[in-house]
């Protein structure tokens, strides 16, 4: 019953999206005012119905209703409840329903909240949102029904992939999707603005908090995903430039550029064309990413059932949505009026360079990710991995970081170098000092060396704009910018130091042996069997002491699940302020010893700490903007009320 109810909700939501689209389209014409008034309520009800459908899916998973095909294929009655629920989105159909639900939710929210733009533009925006949504509804209902039933329910489900039975990864899809799909709002706004020729600072001010929200989630999602891969996969790697990782990075790059561009448009009425283009590109990258991951055309084994028919459907959606938006852009771009002018040495100027650099990195990541596909079309197979991406992206990112250091110090519109000479010298001094120290004393390789030096530069530069200002009365968005930029420096520092100074030990150890790795002494005291809710494991007991200090206990496991049958490695980590000890226990050797893998990774936690700081900076900026906005609206209303009183 519940599943049918969910399916019915989904159909209704899709019909409402169709209604929303038709009403938005026809409502633009003369005499269409009645129809136009239907659009916003339609968006809200669509959100409610779609959300209901999603809740129904969660329900059938929580109850392990094995007559639903999806549950039978992906769940198991013995799974812990939290993972039963997370299993709802840990598969293709369920995650597609999550995608559509977030799109509907986003559309409903703007329909409910946004009244600052001319109604025509809002209608066009909601129409665009409905158009994109309809495509995905069709995909769900015709090619990926999450509520399909089984005629004969099995006695037990297939179980959820053990690697997904981890709280971090369970939360990964919702977080990332809030980001990916949240960018659909920016896309719809861009299309709406193009359709109604309304590219103005007001439009950018409206769009900005939505972009920020999506961007914060995307940042968190990527950071969390990197950390998950690091501790779960057992080899201490945190980024591999795998196509699926790149599929999440590309929208983030576009969204970061979009964020900065929209800020310029909002405050200075410049970079209009850039902002619209980036708004289209950001969500396009989300869609391309979804296609790459679900179609299976790239070698990056992803859990979703790979089906060429599904791939073709998504490709068609891609072609229609992105092609349509790009065509619209080509036709209407000429009508976007020129914005305000600015000199090269100005904050706008720095942000133009920022846009260009981020777009270049985006282009490179896209090229490298797709290149094996291109050569395969000609019958040749090549691989493009970290040895390509690391240096080539660094070539664009490192100069961009220098601009990041100086940009926030510049005035809008036109500045003189003389004014910023002192801070620039300070920053340059910090960078050069760190460079020399690291090079002469630590002998770092080129990329980590530059990385650490630039981290020092950006760390100092992030807080320089705060100099000479009253800290208590500083607007939140400025704090947000400083913290986010500082987070970049922290993450870069972590990446560089970990790359340069990781110490690794692979060895076969007998019980009682002590192994040295970096500044640690690690003793294997025992290997014992343990059992969990749906697994058994061999657990190693390790006593680790840092430079002869107190001993700490670590218990890495080699875990065997039975539904589905699989062995995973559960690493044990010990975190200090200056790094992590990473331990993994493998199989037994023939002479009764145990495979141990130990790493000392200095400052590796700074990578994700930096990512969290970046997200925090974004959150502060978002709060600052929204509260500032609310305050302004209240003040405007008060003034209007007072005028009305005076007039009476």
């Amino acid at each position, binding site marked *: 019953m519940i599943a049918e109810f969910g399916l019915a909700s989904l159909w209704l939501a899709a019909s409402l999206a169709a209604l929303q689209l038709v009403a938005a389209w026809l409502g633009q014409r003369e005499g269409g005012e009645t129809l136009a008034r239907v659009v916003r309520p339609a968006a809200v009800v669509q959100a409610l119905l779609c959300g209901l459908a999603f809740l129904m899916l969660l329900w059938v998973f929580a109850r392990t209703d094995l007559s639903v095909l999806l549950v039978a294929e992906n769940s198991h009655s013995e799974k812990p409840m939290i993972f039963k629920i997370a299993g709802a989105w840990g598969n293709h159909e369920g995650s597609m329903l999550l995608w559509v639900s977030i799109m509907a939710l986003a559309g409903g929210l703007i329909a409910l909240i946004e009244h600052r733009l001319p109604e025509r533009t809002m209608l066009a925006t909601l129409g665009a949102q409905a158009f994109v949504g309809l495509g995905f509804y069709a995909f769900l209902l015709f090619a990926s029904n999450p509520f399909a039933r089984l005629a004969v329910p099995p006695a037990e489900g297939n179980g959820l992939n053990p690697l997904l039975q981890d709280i971090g990864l369970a939360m990964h899809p919702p977080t990332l999707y809030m980001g990916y799909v949240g960018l659909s709002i920016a896309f719809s706004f861009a299309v709406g603005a193009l359709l109604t020729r309304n590219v103005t600072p007001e439009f950018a001010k409206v769009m900005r908090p939505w972009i920020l929200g999506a961007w914060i989630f995307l940042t968190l999602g990527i950071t969390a995903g990197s950390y998950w891969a690091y501790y779960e996969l057992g080899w201490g790697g945190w980024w591999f430039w795998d196509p699926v990782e790149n599929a999440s990075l590309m929208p983030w790059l576009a969204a970061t550029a979009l964020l900065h561009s929209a800020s310029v448009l909002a405050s200075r009425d410049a970079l209009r064309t850039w902002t619209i283009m980036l708004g289209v590109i950001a969500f396009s990258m989300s869609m391309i990413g979804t296609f790459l991951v679900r179609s299976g055309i790239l070698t990056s084994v992803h859990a979703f059932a790979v089906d060429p028919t599904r791939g073709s459907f998504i490709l068609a959606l891609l072609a229609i949505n992105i092609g349509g938006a790009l065509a619209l852009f080509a036709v209407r771009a000429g009508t976007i009026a020129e914005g305000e002018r600015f000199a090269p040495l100005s904050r706008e100027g720095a942000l133009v360079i920022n846009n260009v650099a981020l777009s270049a990195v985006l282009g490179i990541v896209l090229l490298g990710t797709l290149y094996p596909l291109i050569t395969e079309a000609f019958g040749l197979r090549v691989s493009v*991995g970290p040895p390509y991406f690391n240096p080539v992206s660094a070539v*664009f990112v490192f100069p961009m970081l220098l601009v990041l250091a100086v940009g926030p110090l510049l005035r809008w519109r036109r500045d003189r170098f003389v004014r910023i000479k002192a801070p620039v010298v300070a920053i340059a001094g910090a960078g050069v000092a760190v460079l020399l120290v690291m090079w002469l004393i630590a002998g770092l390789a080129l990329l980590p060396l530059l990385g650490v030096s630039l981290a020092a530069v950006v760390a100092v530069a992030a807080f320089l704009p705060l100099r000479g200002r009253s800290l208590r009365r500083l607007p939140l968005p400025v704090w947000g910018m400083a913290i986010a930029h500082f987070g970049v420096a922290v993450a870069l520092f972590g990446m560089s130091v970990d790359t340069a100074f990781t110490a690794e030990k692979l060895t076969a150890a007998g019980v009682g042996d002590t192994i040295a790795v970096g500044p640690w002494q690690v003793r294997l005291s025992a290997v014992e069997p343990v059992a969990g809710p749906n697994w058994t494991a061999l657990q190693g007991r390790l006593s680790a002491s840092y430079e002869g200090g107190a001993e700490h206990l670590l218990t890495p496991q080699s875990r065997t699940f039975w539904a589905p049958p699989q062995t995973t490695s559960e690493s044990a980590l010990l975190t200090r302020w200056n790094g992590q000890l990473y331990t993994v226990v493998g199989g037994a050797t023939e002479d009764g010893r145990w495979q141990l893998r130990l790493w000392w990774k200095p400052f590796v936690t700074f990578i994700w700490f930096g990512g969290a700081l970046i997200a925090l900076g974004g959150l502060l900026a978002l709060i600052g903007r929204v509260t500032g906005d609310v305050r302004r609206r209240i003040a405007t209303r008060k003034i209007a009320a007072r005028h009305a009183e005076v007039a009476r």
Partner: protein
Amino acid sequence: MRWLVALLLALSAPAFANDTMPPAPYAYRQLDDPQLEAKAQALMETLRCLTCQSQSIADSDASMAGDMRSEIRERIAAGETPEHIRQWLIGRYGDYISYQPRVTSATWPLFVVPVLLAVLGALIVLHRFRRRA
């Protein structure tokens, strides 16, 4: 990040059970000389595992990856250069096995396009400022 399922496939792939022989001598054992080991490790991180094709052989638990690691460590200990070993492997399996693309008639765009992007970017910035200033 999502190579998680590479691991899944390696260990539960339907058509291939795993062998029961012990791993190769240097599959899970480092070379005694830390500099040689660092060279070997750097090389292994840039070679693709052919069984679970989303990982490098440094990260893979597949037995073929272990055999390849052992072979590489032994060759490096015997004095071969990492580049020579990479060329040797490309000679057996083609460019697919190396994550570091060579500059060939098929891959030159990979290296030319970033240069073009840099030039294009500079042009955009200059064009923008010439009109604005």
